[in-house]
């Protein structure tokens, strides 16, 4: 051993020991005061400075300083060790002083564990499944609490971290910890979030928290939507009962059909407007045009329910005035899914399979019942002729030819010119009846119609951007054969923070749908399947479709296509829809942003229906040729919307101000054509337009519409107590003439959060109480374009002698045509009591529309009566209540119920002589709601001829009703007492307006189970059962409605509800009367939904995050007194909204589905 060397080592060892034991001492001993001031300086420079001021030398490897942080320091006369401590504390290095040497070396990494328990604040019970996240020092870890509420992050380097705890339905909480020991306990309590208050509601051109709202807005989130149906094709059809005051009527159950939404009544009864709300889908505004089963444009039908994140329904004028011209009937804002920033990407897929059957079908008469009915009608008719109640000459031309086709009659007395005056009825002619026994309603049905739906979605985001992608495939079979809808849609959306100040995003979606159908509507009397005579076989001996003899209906041997044959029509609707929107937002300075957005929606549709000869009614008896026909139409629509706006937020001393101003340009372009082709060489293959003999009718149209707008909003909040908002918008529309283009739409609303007042602080049980008051103006432009100008045009049949002719356009110009305006007051109260267990809100409103556009009287000497003017005044008043209650609120079991009810009173205040079509005069009466029906009141069914004779003799015309009235016929009430029944003896007998309507929603959550059910109801509306009228007309060769057959008058059934049926109804028993009126009130179990999330233990094995299965049933049962197919099936136009409408049946659907998230 080298001693010298040993000594040297000994010296060092001694030094080391001394340093270790007498560190304090030695530091003090070696104390030298140092003064230093640096800013963001690098460590090397600082070392140099210290070396300059002291005798110490630093020992380090150069590259060890590479990963150090800049240092800011201000020290005066500090000890070296102290100073070094300050410097190195935040560095990944540590130091050691040895003699006059400071040795710099890497810090030893120290690790610790963060753990804790998460409990509920209210009852201190542990919460499992809470997501806990730890972020800091380049770390980002996530875990969840176990069954005991415990969580644990092990091997975490010492340092400062942010912990966050989140759980659905609870407020997310966070804690900042400094881990400097091996174990750190960080327990947390969580409070239930009053999600209602914090929920962000989308308002026009912006968003607001629920608690700050001063206007009436209903919101529906994704979760609730799913509970309302998870098999529906479109979202609006399932909104029935979901939001207070939103009346949803499903007029048809056909694939691809959409429901009608009405918010707070009708404002424009006669303009042809559907009075539907404005839909704003991802910022793109739309109106729905038309309500046929095949709407030409309906953006709603192409948005899968699963892609919707939220629906916000703006109701009062304070909310809708920001949409100015288009807000008169409310606004429905639909937001589709977008990815969330800082959320790991998840991929989820789900598949639903459903089986549907009609909720109700009419039960047709059997062959025996049908024959019996024909026999009764014929006997009644012959009796009436013989009793002198039917003019024998009229009978000779009208009744007898038909009767003789079905029965044997022998003429008795003759007038001397060959016309018999009386007949003997010898019974039915059995040869006139077929040998069939056909239930047409069964033949056309597609039993257990399948629907399958597949969704795929990818969702997530990083710090600066987020992305969402959805794909949906939907395949639905109709309830009738040869009928179905297929739809494919995809949507991509993203948002990105390009710089700290600039954010941009876009969404793109494309949908393609194709609907095929044979016949959706059996509209004509004789083709309503349940009224078609059952004695005809569906096919003839050659296997061709049998035709049905229509000579009893048309007075000529017209051969009608059977309902089954009609389903051989080949209808095809294709629709391509593109929706694209992009925005950029630039924060010019703090709280001041500029935003620009542009959206383009494009709909291109093509529809065609080929009607083969065998599926058509054969009118050759009337001199027309029977040709196969093809009708086609195409439509190309594009909506573009461009908006620039500026937002400014300002906050000081409890005052909060938000201002927004914007410019908008909306353009709507539409073009389309229709063609009718006839005569094809073939019914099967050569059915294209090119194979037609000729194009018999064609149209082409192209229009542009535009709206330039300026809008602004100013909202103010003081101490979370006082809220105020003012909106102002002005629109300029291309529809109106010079001087009438522009209109102004102001609104003002105020809110008072009473619970935040000092004097309310002692009241514990009130969690929220807010009073809202609002006033506003909205408008609409429910007319065609350029009605202020007189045009000359040419249509395809404007020809004379084979050469084109130019004709006057039918519109008589009105230079003064202008905006319809609606003024609205709304008062509302929002509340939450008992620790937010009872929540609710109440709204009451009064709306008044002036100058609703309608066809107005015009001097008929103009040659046309098409003249529009602002003439009708309407009012709508009503209230809406929504209540929610948490029946059970435990960790593992929750049961929420919510209930809503609303009432709207619609009234036509002044018609001002509007020019109403003769057929719908009774639907528009001053002082009544739009859509009423007038009719006679039936006092009784006549049972004595003496009574009839007495009434006839005291009538000024010689007849109380008419010549044919006899025993078994209705006695109508002589309302004006003039001794004769005529149109003046009618009064309003039906009104489409329910007294109240709403929904009832239950959601039960137990462990992994979710169970929900939804009821929808409406009470008090009445409608005429038109179908019964057809039966009462006594048409021969046609079956009767079962209800009529069961309860029509006969000598053996003198107390019948329905009168005697005579062919051609000479006694006019089929007049619209109160005997045909039924309430369309109903209570419907709209949807039941059960879902179960598989335990994660199980799914983890399969490397799947979550798997849930669900089952649901919709339209399971309905309580109603309405005898028609469905109480919601009333006419689609206002004039027919109190009449029955045997639309495509509604379906009762059972679904099963599975959803997996990866």
């Amino acid at each position, binding site marked *: 051993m080298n001693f010298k060397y040993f000594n040297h080592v000994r010296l060092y060892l001694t030094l080391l020991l001394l340093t270790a034991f007498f560190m304090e001492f030695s530091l003090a001993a070696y104390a030298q005061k140092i003064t230093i001031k640096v800013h963001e300086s690098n460590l090397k420079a600082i070392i140099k400075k210290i070396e300059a001021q002291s005798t110490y030398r630093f020992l380090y490897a150069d590259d060890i300083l590479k990963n150090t942080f800049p240092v800011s320091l201000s020290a005066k006369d500090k000890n070296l060790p102290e100073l070094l401590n300050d410097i190195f504390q935040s560095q990944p290095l540590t130091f050691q002083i040895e003699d006059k040497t400071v040795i710099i070396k890497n810090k030893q990494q120290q690790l610790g564990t963060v753990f804790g328990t998460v409990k509920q604040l209210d009852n201190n019970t542990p919460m499992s499944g809470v997501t806990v996240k730890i972020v800091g020092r380049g770390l980002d870890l996530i875990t969840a609490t176990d069954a005991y509420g415990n969580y644990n992050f092990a091997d975490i380097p010492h340092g400062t971290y942010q912990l966050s705890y989140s759980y659905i339905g609870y407020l997310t909480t966070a804690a900042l910890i400094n881990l400097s020991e091996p174990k750190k306990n960080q327990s947390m309590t969580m409070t239930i979030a009053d999600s209602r208050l914090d929920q962000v509601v989308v308002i026009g051109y912006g968003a607001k928290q629920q608690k700050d709202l001063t206007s009436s807005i209903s919101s529906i989130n994704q979760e609730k939507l799913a509970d309302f149906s998870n098999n529906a094709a479109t979202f609006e059809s399932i909104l029935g009962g979901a939001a207070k005051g939103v009346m949803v009527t499903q007029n048809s159950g056909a694939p691809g059909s959409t429901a009608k939404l009405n918010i707070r009544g009708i404002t424009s009864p006669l303009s042809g407007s559907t009075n539907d709300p404005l839909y704003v889908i991802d910022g793109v505004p739309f109106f729905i045009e038309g309500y046929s089963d095949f709407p030409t444009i309906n953006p709603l039908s192409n948005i899968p329910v699963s892609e919707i994140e939220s629906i916000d329904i703006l109701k009062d004028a304070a909310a809708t005035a920001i949409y100015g011209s288009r807000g008169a009937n409310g606004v429905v804002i639909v937001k589709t899914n977008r990815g969330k920033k800082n959320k790991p990407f998840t991929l989820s897929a789900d598949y639903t399979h459903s089986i549907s059957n009609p909720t109700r079908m009419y039960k047709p008469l059997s062959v025996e019942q049908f024959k019996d009915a024909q026999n009764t009608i014929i006997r009644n008719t012959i009796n009436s002729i013989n009793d002198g109640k039917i003019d024998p*000459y009229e009978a000779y031309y*009208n009744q007898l030819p*038909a009767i003789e086709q079905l029965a044997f009659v022998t003429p008795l007395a003759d007038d001397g*010119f060959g016309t018999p005056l009386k007949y003997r009825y010898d019974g039915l002619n059995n040869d006139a009846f077929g040998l069939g026994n056909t239930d047409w309603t069964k033949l056309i049905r597609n039993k257990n119609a399948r629907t399958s739906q597949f969704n795929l979605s990818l969702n997530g985001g990083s710090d600066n951007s987020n992305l969402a992608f959805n794909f949906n495939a939907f395949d639905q079979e109709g309830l009738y054969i040869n009928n179905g809808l297929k739809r494919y849609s995809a949507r991509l959306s993203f948002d990105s923070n390009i710089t700290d100040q*600039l954010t941009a995003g876009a969404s793109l979606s494309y949908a393609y749908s194709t609907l095929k159908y044979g016949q959706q509507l059996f509209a004509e009397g004789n083709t309503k399947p349940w009224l078609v005579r059952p004695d005809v076989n569906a096919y003839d001996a050659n296997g061709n479709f049998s035709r049905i003899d229509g000579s009893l209906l*048309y007075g000529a041997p017209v051969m009608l296509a059977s309902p089954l044959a009609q389903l051989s029509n080949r209808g095809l609707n294709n629709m391509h829809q593109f929706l694209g929107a992009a925005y950029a937002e630039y924060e*010019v300075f703090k709280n001041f942003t500029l935003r*620009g957005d*542009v959206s383009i929606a494009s709909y291109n549709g093509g529809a065609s229906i080929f009607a083969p000869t065998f599926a058509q009614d054969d009118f*050759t008896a*009337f*001199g*027309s*040729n029977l*040709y196969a026909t093809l009708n086609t139409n195409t439509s190309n629509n594009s909506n573009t919307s*461009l908006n620039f706006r500026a937002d400014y937020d300002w906050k000081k001393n409890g005052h909060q101000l938000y201002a927004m101003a914007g410019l908008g*340009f909306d*353009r709507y372009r539409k073009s389309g054509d229709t063609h009718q082709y006839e005569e094809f060489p073939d019914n099967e293959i050569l059915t294209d337009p090119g194979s037609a*003999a*000729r194009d*018999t*009718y064609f149209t082409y149209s*192209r*229009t*542009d519409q535009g*709206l*330039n707008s300026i809008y602004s909003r100013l909202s103010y909040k003081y101490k979370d107590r006082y809220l105020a908002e003012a909106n102002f918008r002005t629109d*300029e*529309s291309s529809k109106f003439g010079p001087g009438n283009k522009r209109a102004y739409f102001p609104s003002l609303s105020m809110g008072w959060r009473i619970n935040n007042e000092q004097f309310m602080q002692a009241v514990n049980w009130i969690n929220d109480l807010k009073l809202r008051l609002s006033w506003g103006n909205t408008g609409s432009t429910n007319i065609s*374009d350029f009605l202020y*100008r007189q*045009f000359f*045009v040419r249509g*395809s*049949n*404007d*020809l*004379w*002698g*084979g*050469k*084109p*002719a*130019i*004709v*006057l*356009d039918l519109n008589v*110009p009105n*230079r003064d045509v202008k905006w319809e305006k609606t003024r609205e007051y709304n008062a509302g109260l929002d509340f939450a009591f008992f620790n937010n267990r009872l929540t609710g809100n109440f709204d009451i409103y009064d709306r008044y529309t002036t100058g609703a556009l309608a066809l107005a*009287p015009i*001097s*008929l*000497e*103009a*040659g*046309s009566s098409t003249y529009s003017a602002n003439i009708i005044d309407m009012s709508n008043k009503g209230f809406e209540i929504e209540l929610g209650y948490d029946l059970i609120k435990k960790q593992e079991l929750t049961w929420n119920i919510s209930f809503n009810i609303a009432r709207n009173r619609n009234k036509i205040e002044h018609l001002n*002589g509007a*020019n109403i079509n*003769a057929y719908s*005069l009774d639907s528009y009466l001053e002082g009544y709601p739009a859509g009423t029906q007038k009719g006679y009141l039936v006092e009784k069914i006549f049972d004595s001829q003496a009574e009839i004779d007495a009434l006839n003799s005291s009538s000024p015309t010689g007849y109380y009703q008419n010549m044919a009235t006899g025993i078994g016929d209705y006695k109508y009430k002589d309302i004006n007492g003039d001794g004769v029944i005529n149109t003046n003896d009618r009064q309003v007998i039906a009104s489409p307006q329910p007294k109240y309507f709403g929904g009832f929603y239950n959601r039960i959550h137990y462990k992994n189970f979710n169970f929900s059910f939804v009821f929808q109801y409406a009470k008090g509306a009445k409608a005429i059962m038109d179908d019964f009228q057809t039966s009462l007309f006594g048409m021969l060769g046609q079956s009767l409605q079962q209800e009529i057959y069961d309860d029509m008058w006969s000598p053996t059934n003198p107390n019948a509800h329905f009168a005697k049926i005579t062919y051609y109804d000479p006694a006019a028993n089929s007049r619209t009367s109160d005997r045909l009126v039924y309430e369309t009130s109903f209570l419907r179990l709209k949807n039941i939904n059960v879902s179960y999330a598989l335990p994660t233990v199980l799914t983890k094995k399969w490397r799947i995050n979550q798997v849930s299965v669900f089952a649901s049933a919709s339209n399971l049962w309905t309580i109603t007194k309405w005898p028609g197919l469905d109480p919601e099936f009333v006419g689609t136009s206002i004039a027919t909204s109190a009449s029955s409408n045997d639309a495509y049946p509604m379906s009762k659907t059972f679904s099963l589905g599975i959803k997996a998230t990866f």
Partner: protein
Amino acid sequence: MKIKYLGLLLAGTLGLNSCSMVGDIDDIKPYYKMEGDNVVYNLESAESVLRGVYKSWRAFNVSSFRLYMSILSGTAVSKGGGLTGGQEFVTNSIQANNVALANIYQGSYLTINTANNLIKLMERGDAKGAPEKRVKEIIAECKIQRALAHFQLLRHFGYFFDLSSPYGIVLRSTPFSGTETAPRATVQQSYDFILADLNDAIANAPQNNELHYYVTKATAKSLKAKVLLHMGNYGEAETTAKEAIDDAERNGYQLEGSFQTIFTNGYDSAEALFATYTEGSMEVASDQIARTTYSEFTKRMADMLVGKNSDGDLNTGDGYDQRFYLMFNPALAGAQGNGKHPYSTNGTGKHNTQMLLRLGEIYFIHAEAAARNGHYDTARHSFQTMASRASYPADYATGIGNNVLLAAIFQHKVLELFAENGEDWFDFVRYYQAKNIAINAIKSTIKSDSQLVLPLPQTALAGNNQLQQNPL
């Protein structure tokens, strides 16, 4: 940085402007529509608008109800299926809100308003480069259309049989431009207006046109004779009818050899003074012929004129007037059940023409006017021409006494024209007003004079507060 974004924004906005997503609202214009200031600019464009005037006679509003007056008179009845608003015509109890009224009223004024628009543009000289003669002719053709429409209105809604009555019609000589209203003119003023148009037309209308769905001088003169007859100006009516027949026959018009060919030739018939052009799938007029048939009244009259009173055989036609039998004979009646409408209603080829004025009627006008003027032989001559075509013997007219001649002319005219244009109704009203027949002679439901004029439609009264309803 900021400047860069502003630049992008500006560029973007300009780009959008160029594809018209933004811009002045006044820049939005209608497509494919003409207006008064550009619709007529040369002769061809004027001819197109003129064809539009003609085309208005085929419009649903007027064509569909053309037969209703024959229901009113009871010569025709509705059969299985019924007619729109027709029941009140059957019972002669027409209410002002009957749908047919507004249709007829409005439809007739459409012809007038279209004609007035074109007259104004032609007079203004919009048809650049058009020969002056053709400009005048076009105006004259418009005036014939306007006169015919006014005359129809006067006969339907006015007291046309009473020259001293204030209940004429609203006369329109200018395009309808806004909400202007006017009161009814008197009957005399109405006739004066119509005659002025016809006199203008007689002076300027085309001399001839081989296409009989266009009007000529002869049409104007024939219509004038008819108007004069309605005015009770039998003297002028007789001479004008004679001139009209002569003019017509000099200019390519002539009676068809057989009654049937009038209708099979349709608008091509040499007998048509003005008829609707109906052909192919585009040029069709709606009618409700198939839902009507003859009445007992007509059948009995057709029976009485030939042989004994009740010897008619519907299967062979024996014992019936051949004009009646042609219409309803099972072999010829065709699908519409009426031989005057032999064609199908769709598809290619010729369809059923509506005869608005034909030469045969002018012979009857001449015969009636002459008979009323006591020129029995002249009357018999024209009457015999028509009777001969209907297979009556050559001495048929001479066998009819002066005292019953007018009645015979009436009956034959009914059978000649019924189910065409409602002429039988107006004849009935005229004969009743001239005290030639009793009010209940045709139809038992007609009991009072107020049933002889249609009420003005409710909608016309609603739109024109100066309009006065007919007295009830």
